[in-house]
């Protein structure tokens, strides 16, 4: 227990931890702030203003239409031909704007709807915290290896695997705590925006359950990122190893692989891309379309679909986690500490 307490102290004494937690806090705080500033509750006053604006735009469109028709007819009277290409048949008289085209609804200011928009916001939240968790997890063990701190610690606690797993446990517990606290603040912030600057919508138990499940998957993603960052840095005994693999993985997977697979016309190429599985995990599922399967000359086409589910993502993430952490533990057990 004393080791876990010491490691917790060490984690929060580290500048990387403090800086990245501060950055994620600031970054996440900006999003609700932007929503607060842009969202406006719709009342009779907003409806009236929207109606006035819609009417004004409608009238302006009618005037413009009449001007264009008059211009066309003047040209036709002067003997001009081929005006259909420019003005449409019958000088575009049949395409006069109607009032229905200028619905007041389209002129209302943005109004945040908690029920509809909180779910997607949880995905943004999870992705941001997962990124920070990856860096903190990698740095916590990578810097220890690089600076010799791990060796010093092992002189005090010569049990390699328990030391490594205690460090991992501390990172995971910390990131879980951070996610829960930030997640609660995130929820409260958006609920307040919905309550005072927008609408909450019909919040049934099912809606809250759906939010909770999205949040749980988001928290799992955060822990996964922290564990993989930690494992990679431990394998390479340097933070740069994890960051290099992370950045390299993104470049190779999201750009290189995607382009290469499209060139060789692999169907559903995006199923080999990491972000597909992250999206499917957070969104419950992600549908890929293969437009190459369409023969548009035969008329309308419904492209072939492939649905990647969160269960598929769980398998991919589980295998990656087992490989990285298994490798880190094996390396810790077998390799000399120089």
């Amino acid at each position, binding site marked *: 227990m*004393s*080791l876990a*307490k*010491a*490691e917790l*102290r*060490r984690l929060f*004494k*580290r*500048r990387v931890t403090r800086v990245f937690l501060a950055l994620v806090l600031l970054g996440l705080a900006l999003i609700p702030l932007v929503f607060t500033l842009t969202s406006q509750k719709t009342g009779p006053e907003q409806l009236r203003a929207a109606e006035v604006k819609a009417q004004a735009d409608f009238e302006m469109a009618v005037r413009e239409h009449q001007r264009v028709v008059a211009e066309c007819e003047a040209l036709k009277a002067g003997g001009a031909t081929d005006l259909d290409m420019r003005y449409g048949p019958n000088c575009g008289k049949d395409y006069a704007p109607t009032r229905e085209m200028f619905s007041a609804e389209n002129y209302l200011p943005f109004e945040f709807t908690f029920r509809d928009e909180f779910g997607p916001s949880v995905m943004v939240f999870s992705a941001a915290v997962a990124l920070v968790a990856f860096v903190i997890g990698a740095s916590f063990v990578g*810097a*220890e290896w690089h*600076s*010799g*701190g791990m*060796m*010093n*610690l*092992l*002189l*005090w*606690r*010569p*049990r390699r695997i328990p030391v490594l797993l205690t460090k991992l446990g501390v990172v995971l517990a910390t990131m879980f705590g951070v996610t829960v606290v930030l997640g609660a603040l995130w929820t409260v912030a958006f609920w307040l925006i919905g309550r005072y600057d927008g609408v909450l919508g019909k919040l049934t138990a099912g809606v809250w359950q759906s939010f909770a499940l999205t949040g749980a998957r988001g928290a799992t993603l955060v822990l996964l990122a922290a564990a993989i960052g930690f494992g990679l840095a431990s394998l390479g005994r340097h933070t740069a190893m994890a960051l290099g693999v992370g950045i390299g993985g993104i470049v190779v997977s999201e750009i290189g692989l995607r382009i290469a697979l499209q060139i060789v016309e692999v169907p559903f190429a995006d199923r080999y891309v990491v972000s597909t599985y992250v999206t499917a995990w957070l969104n419950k599922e992600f549908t890929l379309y293969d437009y190459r399967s369409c023969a548009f000359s035969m008329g309308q086409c419904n492209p072939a679909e492939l649905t990647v589910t969160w269960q598929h993502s769980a398998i991919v993430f589980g295998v990656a986690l087992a490989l990285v952490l298994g490798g880190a533990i094996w390396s810790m057990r*077998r390799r*000399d*500490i*120089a």
Partner: protein
Amino acid sequence: MAAVLEITGLEKTYRSRRRGVRRALDGFDMVVEQGQVHGFLGPNGSGKTTTLRTLLGLIRPNGGRMVLLGEEVPAALPRIAKRVGAIVESPQFFPNFTASDTLSLLADAGGVSKQRVAEVLELVGLRERAKERVKTYSLGMKQRLAVASALLKNPDLLILDEPANGLDPGGIREMRTLMRGLAESGMTVVLSSHILGEVQLICDSVTVISRGRRVAHGPVADILAQHAGTGVTVKLEDPAELSPAAEVLISAGARVTPHPDHLSVTNVDRPAWVTRTLAEKGFFVSELAPVRVDLESVFLDLTATAPVPGQARQVDDSATAPAGGWGV
């Protein structure tokens, strides 16, 4: 006196596809008795740090037996780690932590009281600088911090790898006093160092390692005495005769190292034999004195690492232990 540290036949082989096989430790033996300050000497790359790391469980040996404080390691390390304080090679600490933070985190991990942190900082002279980040420290200050971290546990056995490295002369003297004081309080100290003058002053006994094998061990005084008896310096009335005189002595069975104004002669029973042998060939000795040895010259001789003019010695060019070698 009971042995606090015993190593028998320790072996460590590094295998690399690029660099092939290298035997870092080749049946190394070492014994350190309780309450001693024991010097652990060897040229660069001889296996000192590998030995210490292996002893402390950081490196897995390929063979041999190690006993620390009466218990076989590495199996017993988790049990006895609290009784062994160590610094291995250059001091390495997280640069953005203060000395105080560094030690208090180790104290937390090892269940040592916070009060001890202040005590060891005082002991190594870092009290006033304890709140400064380690990255602002000089090498000597980092070395002091490393010693403080090793002393934090108040160990029975203290293993220090190059503790005087980077210290100023005052610091070296303080370190010497500290080592002696610790030994007097009953702590056993194993000291790896290249400052042989210091080792000679501080240590009760030494082990010399070369190319992974022990080439000498025993009390410092005994080792010096044994080496002192083996050689004399010879000056002649006419320095131009040094070269033919050297040939006479070599042909008579002595080992001779020529110098511009004298000869160093070893492998002789009695100094009088030198005088007589040279006189018989018409060379007259103007000065004959026993070779004054210090630990440095003994070390250079034992490890065959004395610099040779015009030659750049490579780190692996050192002596291997002779069969039934000197001091064994």
